[in-house]
């Protein structure tokens, strides 16, 4: 059996985490390449539906990261995001969606090393959890009478 390499999607804010990730690179810190980074102006822009769509499209894990509280470029975007994540996490826990597959973090533009650590620890954790099979099975479950495409 070939080694499972998790697919991770990272939703990051432009001003802090994205810049922090740049710093990781310019500092020549090596970190896992499983992550596809998607840049947002602010974590406040991140819609919870995007996380669900990531799982539906084959992601095994998700990272959501932004500016530290009180450091948001738009003053309060991350405060709104934090509340939203709290509710989303509670709902997902209640429904049995695997919250171990989502990492939430505050990574500032100066924390290049922290970004590498967040990514590496997430990849290690997801590698152990394996691919998100149950979610994919649900996505691909056909409606009983449907004539499937070959």
């Amino acid at each position, binding site marked *: 059996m070939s080694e499972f390499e998790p697919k991770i999607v990272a939703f990051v804010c432009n001003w802090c985490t994205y810049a922090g990730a740049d710093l990781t690179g310019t500092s020549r810190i090596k970190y896992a390449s499983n992550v596809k980074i998607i840049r947002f102006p602010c974590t406040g822009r991140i819609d919870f539906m995007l996380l669900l769509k990531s799982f539906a499209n084959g992601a095994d894990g998700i990272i959501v990261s932004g500016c530290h509280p009180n450091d948001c470029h738009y003053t309060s975007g991350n405060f709104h995001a934090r509340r939203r994540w709290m509710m989303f996490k509670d709902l997902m826990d209640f429904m049995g969606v695997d919250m171990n597959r989502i990492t939430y973090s505050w990574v500032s533009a100066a924390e290049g090393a922290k970004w590498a650590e967040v990514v590496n620890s997430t990849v290690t954790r997801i590698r152990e959890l394996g691919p998100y099979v149950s979610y994919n099975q649900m996505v691909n479950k056909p409606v*009983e009478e449907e004539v499937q495409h070959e």
Partner: protein
Amino acid sequence: METTKKLIRKKSLEKLYAALSMSRKVYAPVVADDNRVEYKYNPEFSAITFDHIQSTLSVKNLVFPKVENLIYFTNHKTESSVTEVDVSRIPEVVLWGAHPCDAAAYDVLRSIFCWDTKDQFFSKRLEKLTVIGLACHQSDDYCFCTSVGLAPDSAKGSDILLSRLKSGDYQAEILTEKGNAVAGLSPGLFEAMPDEGVLTADVKARFDYREVTKKLTGAFKHPFWVANSLRCIGCGACAYVCPTCACFDIQDETRGLNGRRYRSWDSCGFGLFTLHTSGHNPREVQSQRWRQRIMHKFSYMPDRNESLGCVGCGRCSRGCPVDMNIAEQLTALQTI
């Protein structure tokens, strides 16, 4: 063809079910955890109920599924390819235990789907469907089949009609070639029918559909609609549980370079059902939509389709969150 009445014992039904399940999908009613009745594919015979008054959802999904793929398409960058859905892959299905209202509903749907152009999906599914009807020995206050020209023992739409006898065994009336083919799988199970009456529910007629149709011709602007639709919340529950409702939406869904076009259930009760791209909505308020529901089933369809658009199963009233109760409204309409 000449119809024949035979006796089939309760335990022979189990053998018949086993014979059918070996080669086909059999859709039969079972009682769910919350005491609702739902139809499932190939359940254990011991789970099948013969005592249900009505299931929550209708069985129209066998000919008009809640989602039907129409075409598949692929984008090849400079051109695209379209693949037709291969309707020959639609399997044979036996509907086990459909009450007379549901059996009759297929003909109503046929009058819509095959009105001018023959809908190939509907037609193929109906062709592959065999209906084993189950006459009603009980009913509840929501049933009104006798008000719309049907009856708890009507054979319309069934290929074989089972009717319960006092002994607990069943009379099997073999009505069509398809029914003959089913009986032919295990002919030994069908015995000579003794001279015994079947148990039939007593469903008192509440209104006369012909009177209602006549009244509706002049009723478009009647204040009845506004007065009686205020509590309607505009959901799709009545349309979706109805065995004769056939409105659908068509959507394209893509994933990368591939996609499909499908049709799925829709309801004229939704606020946006008749919204035009211009922004104009001819049925902006719920009273217009409620009027549409009733007029369509009891006036427009009899006028143009030859079929009444309702079989009196009562599911809409059982499922309605606000008790719109169509039979009550139709009874009132008769006297406007």
